[in-house]
């Protein structure tokens, strides 16, 4: 309690009381003490002895102590070993580029390889090649990781034991001797389809020398049936190539020509006819008929769900309509010969589709999926013939080939004990052969099997020899592009583990020179110049031989073969129903036929449609799931043709009813760490007479919620938010700037910024435009970014926890067109849209203001830059990022074993990733994985945030060379469009355009002026540098459901403006 002490008044009267002897004595000392103890006024604030100097001294000492304490934390030590002798041309840290190409079943993909100090780190398309625009597919992007796959085969293996290369040479010499002796009797080679002129030359030579030997090819996803039909109707050595630039109307009958059946050229050409950069553009129109959503179906203007087993019947119906209106004699005969399956189809759909095809006769095209039976191909070819497609939209090319036998023949020959010695080049027949061939057992019956394989796999284990195969980046070779252009395969590095290429092995068998000599020999046939050496140099330098594409064939469509072809059509299968369910085996978008199962980038890549990672699943429609009483993640047993398989199911919007799709390629059993125990092996159900689909499947529930499916995107609906904006061509012509007035953007109050920002005054101002009209969603950009920017994989469990590290993701939304609540198929048959999403480099970035340590700041050229060294990982920037494109290193994904699991130890930890062991787990990246890393991009440690940088390292490299060019005083602004980001460079559809928005000549500036250009979340005043071009669809107004196409932003009142979020039905995946 505070009491005011009253000093005893001087004029004391009466009796005097005292409290102490001192008071009584009233000495001066006592008075002064009294004065001090009880001063009347304010306390006398005597200054104490602490001077400014002493204060600073103390503070300094405490800081120094703090410094000593903190200096205990250090970065790990690292060492750099310099070259003792410098390598010619080599500047450490500066990339050297070489042309090469990647072999593929439909032809090579022309590539440019970026190498650092002799290590290939990144692959780009070769834009010099006429059929390429510098884009690639995602397999080419990911193939560089295969080179450094720790799981690849490293040694020769004989009978399960390691052997040396010399021992194999000795063995090969004995084989050659035997071959000489027996003219090749009992000897066979099984290969995958490839378009390599040198390989063809070797094979011909081999066949010449050893005529008794057998050559067989097998591609699990082959196009034998298609080729059969083409051979029957056109003759041998003929191939058909669709010309998408010439086609106005395209009907795809389960042909995923933009997806898994794509070539870079087909995507490029299709998107050229899709791009709308003005009002007068002539867009193509795509009709798709398919059982599941494919990339192609997502791009379609009209899409019809149809079970795969009904596609042949559909083709016949369509042919009937086309025949009726064209009155084509051949087609009429075809239609007359075939029976109708009795499946009800949407008659109006077929009628109007056919009418559209016929109306643009000569500019229309019908495509059929590769693995349908030959007779269906015959029908479709006859239809194309009636539509005048040959020579215009469907080019007939003469493609010389080596005659080989089919896998079926090999099986027959093996059963007949005709094969004593089999060389298997690539492929993985034990895993991927049709289940009814029982090839695994059959292969054991062959006395000697020599396997040339990239990794030790299912086929290697029962083989006598396993020979490590060299990666295509390690060996010489050649390819022809899908259009026939002759491409070199140049080695970037010596074989890391001393592997052999197919050509090496063939050359040894045939006794021919291998390596570069072989390619030079083949190149002579493509060279038209007199000076061979300079032509050869140019060939390697520019990566292709000029005018080497396939010649147009001088053959006519021969309808006389049709009746025989059509005779092979069996009785048409009845319509699918709850009692007659079909199962379809599509190729996987990520690991193809299973060959990429040990590629971590591809395994972690979300499937473009389902967004599943590290898994496959049976997708089925919602009503099928309801009829079968299944839910996401339920484990079921599929039975078909007496074979059984357990797999998880997943409900997929847009899937045909009573049809199941299970992608091939999963469930490998002899595979590296990455692919171990992932997914369900659809090959177990696939037989030789049902390469694509099988009917009469039974489905039995094994376990409710028995399998955890992991998706990177759990929410399917856009929730009525105009993130992707689209309109039809007509609407666009009426209101070109429609995208700017959609939804909230119709009324944005003027914004005021609280903060002043550093000036954006650099000579270049970077920006990006993403064209949603051409983006097909193939995710090549995702892998390109991963390769370029040293992005680690994190494993299934971490993806499940929401920690995938991709800097760019492709958002996939299903959108039921508004306004049609009465349509029972609203959820079953939605539209699908794709939207690549990466850092938008907001000028007014929400992430920057909230970072407490200034680790994310803005550069003068408009980049939102991330300073890893400064980042302490508060994650506030990510929380405040409206696009959630920032990625956080929750663990040391680069330095701790992501794929290894904890075998034993603490209870509760078993089976978890070794990431959870913390310091007890081994530290450091393995040497092989290190080699892939881009030296110009920091490898991030745990605890830091990262995100898209607009490929800052590429901008800086360009700036450095511009500085060198310009000198000290010159113009430091970069030439127009001289920098490409990795995603842009990889995009075959040219949907991502990066450049200087300050430069009016740049492509990005020009695109930004287009009326359909819009900013995302503009109302937040974040001023994004990345903008989007709205999607424009080209529906046929006469088609049923045409009103629903292209209006996903329209609410139920038909009002595009001011609409509140509509209560769209939740279409969450199982995890939400």
């Amino acid at each position, binding site marked *: 309690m505070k009491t005011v002490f009253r000093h005893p008044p001087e004029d004391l009267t009466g009796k005097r009381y005292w409290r102490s002897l001192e008071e009584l004595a009233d000495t001066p000392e006592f008075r002064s003490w009294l004065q001090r103890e009880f001063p009347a006024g304010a306390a006398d604030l005597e200054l104490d002895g602490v001077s400014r100097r002493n204060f600073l001294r103390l503070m300094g000492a405490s800081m120094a102590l703090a410094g000593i304490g903190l200096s205990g934390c250090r970065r790990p030590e690292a060492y750099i070993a310099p070259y003792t002798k410098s390598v010619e041309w080599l500047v450490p840290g500066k990339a050297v580029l070489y042309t090469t190409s990647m072999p593929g079943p439909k032809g090579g993909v022309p590539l440019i390889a970026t190498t650092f100090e002799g290590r290939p780190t990144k692959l780009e398309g070769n834009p010099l090649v006429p059929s390429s625009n510098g884009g690639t597919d995602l397999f080419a992007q990911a193939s560089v990781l295969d080179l450094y796959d720790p799981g690849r085969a490293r040694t020769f293996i004989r009978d399960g034991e390691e052997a040396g290369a010399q021992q194999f040479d000795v063995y090969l010499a004995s084989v050659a001797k035997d071959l000489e002796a027996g003219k090749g009797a009992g000897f066979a080679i099984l290969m995958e389809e490839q378009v390599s002129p040198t390989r063809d030359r070797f094979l011909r030579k081999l066949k010449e020398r050893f005529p008794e030997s057998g050559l067989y090819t097998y591609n699990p996803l082959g196009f034998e049936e298609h080729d059969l039909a083409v051979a029957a109707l056109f003759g041998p050595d003929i191939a058909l190539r669709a010309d998408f630039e010439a086609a106005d109307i395209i009907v795809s009958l389960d042909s995923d020509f933009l997806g898994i059946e794509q070539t870079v050229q087909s995507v490029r050409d299709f998107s050229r006819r899709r791009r709308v950069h003005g009002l007068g553009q002539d867009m193509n129109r795509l009709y798709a008929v398919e059982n599941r959503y494919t990339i192609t179906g997502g791009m379609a203007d009209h899409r019809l769900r149809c079970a795969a087993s009904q596609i042949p019947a559909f083709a016949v119906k369509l042919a009937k309509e086309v025949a009726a209106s064209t009155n084509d004699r051949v087609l009429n005969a075809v239609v007359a010969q075939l029976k109708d399956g009795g499946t009800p189809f949407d008659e109006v759909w077929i009628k109007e589709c056919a009418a559209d095809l016929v109306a643009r006769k000569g500019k229309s095209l019908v495509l059929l999926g590769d693995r349908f039976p030959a007779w269906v191909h015959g029908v479709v070819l006859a239809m194309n013939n009636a539509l005048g497609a040959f020579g215009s939209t469907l080019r007939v090319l003469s493609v010389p080939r080596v005659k080989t036998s089919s896998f079926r023949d090999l099986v027959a020959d093996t059963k007949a004990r005709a094969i004593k010695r089999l060389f298997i080049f690539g492929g993985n027949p034990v895993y991927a052969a049709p289940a009814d061939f029982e090839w695994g057992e059959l292969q054991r019956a062959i006395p000697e099997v020599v396997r040339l394989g990239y990794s030790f796999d299912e086929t290697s284990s029962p083989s006598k020899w396993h020979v490590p195969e060299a990666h295509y980046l390690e060996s010489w070779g050649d390819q022809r592009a899908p259009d026939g252009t002759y491409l070199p395969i140049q080695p970037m590095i010596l074989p890391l583990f001393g592997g052999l290429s197919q050509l090496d092995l063939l050359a040894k068998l045939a006794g021919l020179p291998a390596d570069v000599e072989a390619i030079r020999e083949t190149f002579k046939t493509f060279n038209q110049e007199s000076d061979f050496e300079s032509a050869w140099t140019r060939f390697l330098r520019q990566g292709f031989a000029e005018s080497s594409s396939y010649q147009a064939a001088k053959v006519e469509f021969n309808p006389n073969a049709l009746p025989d072809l059509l005779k092979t059509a069996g009785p048409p299968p009845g319509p699918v129903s709850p009692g007659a369910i079909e199962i379809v085996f599509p190729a996987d978008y990520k690991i193809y036929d299973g060959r990429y199962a040990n590629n971590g980038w591809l395994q972690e890549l979300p499937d473009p449609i389902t967004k599943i990672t590290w898994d496959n699943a049976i997708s089925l429609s919602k009503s099928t799931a309801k009829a079968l009483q299944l839910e996401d993640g339920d484990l079921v047993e599929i039975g078909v043709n007496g074979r059984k398989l357990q797999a998880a199911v997943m409900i997929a919007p847009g899937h045909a009813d009573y049809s199941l799709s299970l992608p091939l390629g999963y469930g490998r059993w002899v595979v590296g760490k990455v692919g171990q125990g992932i997914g369900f092996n659809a090959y177990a159900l696939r037989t030789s007479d049902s390469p694509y689909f099988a009917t009469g499947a039974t489905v039995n529930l094994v376990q409710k919620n028995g399998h955890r499916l992991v998706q990177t995107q759990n929410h399917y609906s*856009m929730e009525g938010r105009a993130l992707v904006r689209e309109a039809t061509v007509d609407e666009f012509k009426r209101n070109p700037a429609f995208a700017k007035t959609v939804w*909230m953007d119709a009324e944005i109050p003027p914004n005021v910024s609280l*903060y002043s920002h550093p000036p954006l005054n650099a000579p270049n101002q970077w920006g990006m435009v993403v064209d949603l009209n051409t983006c097909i969603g193939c995710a090549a950009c995702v892998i390109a970014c991963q390769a370029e920017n040293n992005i680690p994989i994190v494993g299934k469990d971490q993806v499940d926890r929401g*920690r995938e590290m991709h800097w760019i993701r492709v958002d996939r939304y299903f959108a039921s067109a508004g306004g049609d609540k009465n349509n029972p198929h609203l959820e079953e048959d939605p539209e699908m849209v794709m939207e690549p*999403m990466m850092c938008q480099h907001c000028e007014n970035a929400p992430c920057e203001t909230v970072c*407490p340590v200034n680790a994310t700041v803005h550069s003068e050229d408009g980049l939102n830059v991330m300073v890893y060294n400064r980042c*302490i990982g508060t994650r506030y920037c990510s929380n405040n990022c409206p696009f959630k494109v920032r990625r956080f290193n929750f*663990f040391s994904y680069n330095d701790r074993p992501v794929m290894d699991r904890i075998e034993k130890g603490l209870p509760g930890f078993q089976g978890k990733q070794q990431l*959870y062991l913390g310091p007890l787990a081994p530290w450091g990246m393995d040497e092989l994985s290190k080699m892939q890393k881009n030296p110009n991009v920091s490898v991030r440690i*745990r605890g830091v945030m990262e995100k898209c940088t607009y490929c800052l390292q590429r901008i800086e490299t360009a700036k450095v060379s511009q500085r060198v060019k310009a000198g000290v005083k010159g113009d430091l602004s970069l030439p127009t469009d001289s920098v490409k980001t990795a995603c842009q460079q990889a995009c075959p559809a040219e949907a991502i355009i990066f450049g200087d928005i300050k430069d009016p000549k740049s492509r990005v500036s020009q695109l930004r002026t287009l009326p359909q250009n819009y900013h995302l979340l503009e109302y937040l005043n974040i001023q994004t540098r990345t903008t989007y071009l709205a999607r424009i669809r080209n529906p046929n107004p006469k088609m049923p459901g045409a009103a629903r196409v292209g209006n996903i932003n329209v609410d139920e009142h038909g009002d595009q403006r001011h609409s509140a979020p509509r209560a769209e039905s939740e279409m969450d995946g199982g995890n939400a």
Partner: protein
Amino acid sequence: MAEPDASTVAFVERMPRRPLVLNNHSMAWISDRIAGIVENKAPLWWWITISITGSFAAFGTFCMLYLLYTGVGVWGNNVPVGWAWDITNFVFWIGIGHAGTLISAILHLCRQKWRTSINRAAEAMTLFAVMCAAIFPGIHVGRFWMAWFLAPIPNPNWIWPNFRSPLMWDVFAVSTYFTVSVLFWYLGLVPDLATMRDRAKGKVSRIVYGILAFGWRGGNRQWRHYEMAYLVLAGISTPLVLSVHSTVSFDFATSVLPGWHTTIFPPYFVAGAIFGGFAMVLTLMLPARSLHKLQDVFTWDHIDVMCKLVLLTGSIVGYAYCMEFFVAFYGANPFERFAFLNRYFGPYWWASWTMFTCNVIMPQLFWVRAFRRNWAIVFFVSMCANAGMWFERFVIFVISLHRDFLPSAWRMYYPTWVDVFTFIGTIGIFLTLFLLFIRFLPMVAMSEVKGVLPEADPHYHPRTDPESESRKEAHA
């Protein structure tokens, strides 16, 4: 001084002020009872309790070390939900740390004498809560060994912290608050430490208390300085009580996230913090007063007043909840609308409804006087408020983050065992520190309580007191 006039005397006689210490205890009784808690042997229950809380604290510390050595990934945080239990716990503990300083500073300035019997313990609770809170920003960062980047240390690179970042404001606000709270608490302890020193029987305790007492003699001059310093610190603390949680709320209010970007946050957070803080004081003091037989010092009147404050602040919080909801509707921003609908009807609806029930509905029981004086109900409601305030933070952070602008990025958040045990660990640390506090320091401010005894009043007239004779005897 003039005698009070007749009407005042009549009023006082008709409605006497309720005594702040019951049963006319003497000053000596107070010293004996309170110092006795420290001086006597620790009771069995203390040993049992501290071994339990200590184990939780130890395991929690293990979890934190595991986190620091392994990575933030051992928690359940993910990309849309960058902050989950970590910041929930941080704000929860910071909120708890509001009652103590409010009681000691604001009530001191308002001359609310009833504060004296609870302020010491409440302030100690504040400190321990702030300590628990401070753990989380420290360990939740990805690279804790670089956390010193947050300090504005001059360096040759000219790199400074980002003073625009609310997290930076947080660092200053919380550290200032903690520093001032420590000073305030310790200053109040000095006279009592001197009492402990003077009463100490053992040599060690005499030396330790002697050092801690800073040579306090109880002289008038010391009291005068003490009171002035106490007043000044109360003055400094008062705005801090309001500013700390306002600043903490800026972490969210200044962001662009729907559900965070709200101007109502500062007052709403402060009210919530006081609400939660008082609930925690009640939670701790109800058992403490029974176990240490302090019912006469910490009376039902104290509990009653605190319950009223809980009711008031709980209702303010309830108002804020409703107002948020209304503004989300009225603002016509679809993102905001969605955020609030999702809060109550989305996948985490149970968390929001728990929050609403615990924070808004349960405190309404305190309208009834009988409930405010029933220990079971008071304890129950304050436990509800503790849980409710934790859920409030969970709701604001996790639910807002898990579904924001782009539906493609939406994702659920699930805690891991490390999340759970880190939180339980901080509860363990908090309770352990509190138990140590009541073991080694006087848990009631003896000197201040003596100051509010009737005898301390200079105008105290024993003749009005019928029991004055017995009191005199006690004095002697």
